[in-house]
């Protein structure tokens, strides 16, 4: 219910422009919030800059560094400076990787996007099919099994599932590689398609399984709704077979809401990818968020937060647009 409310917010009836403006305002404010949070945190930027070697510099050098890093300015000034740099395409320099943040993101984002995109598609496809099955066989054994397993899947911690999959498929059965996105010493693009899919299989499976539950339950409700509707009864009276009813009425009325819901849950999928990438040692953006957080690398953390806020913004925008399209269809 909560997630449905997120899909169809109360301003959905107004023009597209206001929606985009509001979402954009949210995006800017979220970045501001993240910046404020990081500046409030007790992390010492000078210490991080020196790689934890705070006592290696004299007081005078430290004062110079403070000026050089802009730490003598207020948070607002720092933020403005950061924002100006951002507009000119400079995200700062990561002390952890000794690389500029935009290069790291350029390097890691495609991998993360591939992982998230594949698991998005997989969970949509499998979740929809299972939900459709459960709805069509409402109250029967299949329905009960699917319902219970959706409930179970919603409760499973994703990192634990990932660990179990590793110990089953990689260690016990040695079917899949143990970690990483590619064999040692190779880049992701250099390996064969077979080894690529082997490396991607377990992380995608973990993410897809954990994020499937809402789609299953939502599709089931929707299918049951459609099957109980007047137009399906009418279609039955005209002697349409069950297959015709399903392919003409049920599919058309339940696919789009499922997709909208799934776009709106993009944020959760991204959060899940942080865990999955850490468990599988997958060199994507999520894993580098964790590394940056643990190593107090503020610039990298801020860059990753920006990217994830952008991703969520896009997901919400698409969900909003689609739901508006759906509502428009209903009001006609």
């Amino acid at each position, binding site marked *: 219910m909560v997630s449905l409310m997120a899909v169809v917010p109360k301003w959905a009836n107004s023009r597209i422009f206001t929606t985009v403006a509001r979402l954009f305002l949210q995006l800017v404010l979220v970045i501001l919030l993240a910046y404020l949070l990081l500046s409030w945190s007790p992390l010492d930027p000078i210490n991080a800059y020196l790689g934890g070697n705070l006592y290696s510099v004299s007081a005078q050098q430290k004062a110079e560094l403070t000026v050089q890093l802009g730490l003598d300015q207020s948070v607002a000034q720092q933020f403005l400076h950061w924002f100006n740099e951002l507009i000119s395409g400079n995200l700062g320099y990561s002390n952890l990787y000794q690389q500029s943040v935009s290069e790291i993101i350029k390097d890691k984002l495609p991998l993360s996007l591939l992982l998230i995109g594949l698991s998005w598609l997989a969970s949509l496809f499998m979740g929809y099919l299972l939900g459709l099955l459960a709805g069509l066989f409402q109250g029967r054994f299949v329905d009960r099994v699917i319902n219970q397993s959706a409930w179970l899947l919603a409760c499973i911690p994703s990192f634990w599932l990932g660990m179990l999959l590793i110990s089953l498929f990689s260690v016990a059965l040695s079917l899949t590689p143990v970690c990483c996105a590619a064999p040692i010493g190779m880049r992701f693009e250099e390996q064969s398609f077979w080894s690529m899919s082997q490396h991607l299989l377990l992380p995608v499976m973990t993410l897809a399984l954990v994020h499937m539950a809402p789609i299953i339950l939502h599709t089931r409700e929707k299918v049951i709704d459609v099957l109980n509707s007047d137009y399906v009864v009418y279609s039955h009276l005209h002697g349409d077979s069950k297959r015709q009813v399903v392919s003409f009425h049920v599919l058309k009325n339940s696919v789009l809401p499922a997709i909208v819901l799934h776009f709106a849950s993009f944020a959760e999928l991204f*959060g899940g990818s942080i865990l999955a990438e850490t468990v599988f040692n997958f060199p994507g953006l999520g894993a580098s968020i964790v590394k940056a957080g643990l190593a107090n690398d503020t610039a990298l953390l801020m860059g990753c937060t920006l990217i994830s806020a952008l991703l969520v913004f896009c997901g919400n925008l698409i969900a909003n647009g689609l739901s508006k399209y759906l509502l428009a269809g209903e009001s006609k």
Partner: protein
Amino acid sequence: MERFLSQKGAVAIGCSLLLLLLSAFFWPSSGTEINLLNKNMAPSLTYLFGTDWLGRDLFSRSLKALVSSFYIGGMAVILSCTLALMMAMLALVNRYFRWSVDLLVDLFMSLPHLLLLILLALVFGGDQQGLVMAIALSHWPRLTRLLRFEMQVIANTPYFQLAKQFGHSPLVILKRHMLPHLLPQWFVGALLLFPHALTHMAALTFLGFGLDPSTPSMGALLSQASQYLLTGMWWLALCPGGLLLISLLMLSYLANSVLKIVREGPQTTTTSIRSKVNLEIKPRIKVGVKNA
């Protein structure tokens, strides 16, 4: 409450969860004794969950970790729900407050949950208090949104409008007409939040932002287990996680049955009234028929 007791499944689940927690709390061994002779043993009858790389009994460790996870998670949930209720109340004050509360909710919900948790954990530092604060501050928006929705419904009802027009003070209206409807929802929201909080807490500790690895907690156990996963010690991951999963399932079952009762709550009284009314009406009708 009576309806809850009439649901055998929910009562059984609740009792067993309570029993599990109590026995875990009073479990004699703390699971910190190092016994190098019996290290890396697979689960057996003496060691139900096996032993780890130092020969510590994993069953005792998991039980203690479960208790401490429930304790910390419970504190975080109570804080978070109180915050949610206060925010929802603030939204009642006037238009501007409502707008800012809505904006804040949207804001907190437009970052991935785990990323927000990481940022908050960094702000508050990784200790127990930091973890509690991070979870409390990141879980309130959903409940606030739900409560705001409920409040809107109540604020549109005639009795609420009338009470307002009769000139009662806002606090009296709030206490007499809003809270009695809101508190069950709030309670259910807290129950539904609990499994989420536990999972997120374990996840955060697993990633290294939460509790110290030396304190017993589910996340710490699992993150240590992940280092020994490749040596084939599957029980280190499976058993504590399984215990966590079972308690999460029990919690969510409980929350769902309470939710069902709260949703159907008013119906019970009306059906009982209706059955009484029917009993009274039926004889009268019969009399009427006879007279005709």
